[in-house]
């Protein structure tokens, strides 16, 4: 295997900085996807393999809104709103029946949903990937004469993801609703006995997760284009990031996302894009061998 040692002239440093910044901004999107997966896992103990297909769908809707004359922000808002509704519908109609059963069945249902949504998107909008506008300029900042590979749009991406994570944290830790949602996730039976409408909390959990996912979709759409299968790698990387962080902690999603983003950016930059999936596998194996429950897993067992 060829291994090019990075040159440490000013070119090398610029390249390293570029890759780092790029890794942070793609990592932010992985973190958002991972966050959506963690939210659903904590609430219903299900891995939502259909997450990628769901936010592909909402991004398509946003694209349709923008193409028919709406502003970017209108499309953005519509995507988030549709995500919220779609998440609630999916939980209520489909997932409710497989919660609490053999987990493999939930996996199959989610896979079926993924396939179905991608097929429906193909039927409505066709299979050719289409472009999606970014929120802000994608022309990199100029710092001291050199143009870095980090643009206003990337700043927006990172800030939005951070803001969302903080908002969710505030929701869960400081509000009555958040307390009920956490209780419903940790001990649904006990929560019921305390009058918490657990079913509604689970639906809300899915709706929020899907909203976060839609956010990720809109943020990444400019770079990967919008098509029925275009977001599949994002789901794989988001899932990998969630596992790296440990499925039970939202902080894990954030750290896992950024870590994965950085590693993949460096590998892609120094070794070539074809090794990116292999690098993800290696990173995942290394992390899990050291901590089988992910980076932020606790060894404390749940006591009844």
């Amino acid at each position, binding site marked *: *295997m060829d291994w090019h040692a990075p040159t440490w002239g000013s070119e090398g440093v610029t390249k390293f900085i570029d890759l780092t910044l790029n890794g942070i901004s793609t990592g932010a999107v992985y973190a958002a996807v991972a966050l959506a997966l963690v939210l659903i*896992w904590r609430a219903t*103990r299900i891995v939502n393999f259909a997450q990628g297909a769901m936010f592909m769908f909402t991004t398509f809707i946003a694209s349709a809104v923008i193409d028919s004359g709406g502003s970017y922000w209108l499309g953005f808002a519509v995507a988030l709103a549709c995500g919220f509704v779609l998440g609630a519908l999916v939980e209520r109609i*489909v997932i*409710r*029946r*497989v*919660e*609490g*059963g*053999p*987990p*493999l*069945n939930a*996996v*199959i*249902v989610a*896979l*079926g*949903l*993924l*396939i*179905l949504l*991608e*097929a*429906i998107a*193909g*039927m409505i909008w*066709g*299979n050719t990937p289409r472009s999606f506008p970014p929120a802000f300029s994608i022309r990199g900042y100029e710092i001291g004469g050199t143009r870095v590979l980090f643009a206003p749009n990337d700043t927006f991406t990172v800030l939005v993801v951070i803001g969302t994570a903080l908002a969710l944290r505030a929701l869960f830790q400081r509000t009555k609703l958040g307390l009920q949602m956490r209780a419903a996730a940790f*001990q*649904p*039976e*006990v929560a019921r006995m305390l009058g918490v*409408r657990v*079913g509604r909390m689970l639906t809300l959990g899915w709706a929020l997760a899907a909203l976060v996912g839609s956010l990720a979709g809109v943020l990444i759409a400019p770079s990967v284009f919008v098509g029925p299968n275009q977001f*599949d790698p994002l789901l*794989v990387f988001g*899932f*990998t990031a*969630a*596992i790296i962080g440990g*499925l*039970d902690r939202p902080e894990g999603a954030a750290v896992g996302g950024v870590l994965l983003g950085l590693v993949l950016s460096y590998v892609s930059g120094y070794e*070539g894009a*074809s090794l*990116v*999936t*292999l690098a*993800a*596998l290696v990173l*995942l*194996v290394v992390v*899990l*061998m050291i901590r*089988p429950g*992910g980076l932020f897993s606790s060894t404390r*067992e749940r*006591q*009844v």
Partner: protein
Amino acid sequence: MRLPSRIRPPRLTLARSLGFVLLAAVVLALVSEALSSYNDLQLANGAYYFAVLAGLTLLTGLSGQISLGHGALMAVGAYTVALLIGNEHWPVLPALIAAVLTSAVVGVLVGAAATRLRGPYLAGVTLAFAVGLPALAGKYPSTFGGANGLVINPPTSPSWLGQSFPLERWEAWIACAGALVVLFAIYNLVHSAVGRSLQAVRDDEIAASLCGLRVARLQTLAFVVSAACAGLAGGLLTLVLQLAAPGAFTLGLSLALLTGVVLGGLGSILGAIWGAALLVLLPIWSNDIAHAFSFSTNVTNNLPLAIYGLVLILAMLLWPSGLQGALGLLGLRVSTSLKNRASTRYPVGGAGQERAAARRGGASPPQGREEEEVR
């Protein structure tokens, strides 16, 4: 909860199962004579699907370890056969044995890593494996043929079968032979002490290890066996298609294998047969349906997938135990499975098992599971 089954064949000993397999071989040979070339090809496809599904159902159903990466394991066997037959001109049988061995070795590696992982973490690793391993083909295009893959010459039927013996029928014979070997091996493994030990580990690891079972070894063994089956299936696929290319071993294949195992009925050999049949026939049927109506191109192209997705969702909602379970409800199921319930490494219900699951890292199902009432 065990569904009552009306017909239960007597437990077959090693010798009797061998006899059954030989009988099945004769029957399949006769059937293949009667089928057209196209259908012989479908038979071959079904045969290698069965080979990998049987191993996968052993791993996921009996041993309770989820794998989203068996497509990549098939790729290992496929490329082994392609390289040995294409480059080194090995004959078919040694090449297939080599495929089994190489994928078994990979299975040891994956299995060893898997023993420390549970549930979704194992799923994540096997998923990354399914997506990452085929990347090697792209990284070393000279060896692995890059995106176009490796082509081999079609297998030639032996002269004593006659000159005009159709290629497809010979491929069906090879594939069915492989499938029957797998059937024999898996059946006897399931009904042996090892098989029972695997189930014991699946149901309660801690209790099993307290009884003296070597948990990690058994779990790795399950992986190795299922990887060997997958490798054989991959090798058979290469023989049938005369091609080993990354496009045939996408993540989609791994996921399709998993759906086949669950739809057919997890943990049962008959379930693997149903699953294989579904994987071959469902795309054909949905394609036929799509083309029967004159829809727009977009719709026609995507309708088969939409049907497949819908089938998966409905099947899981209506028949959670797969086809085997559904037949059982009709009193028609022929039981070949030892297990009492399909469970992966998340036991369903039972306080002791929930505590055990919690010790493994909180992978127990939510309590307070209500009836199917819509709130």
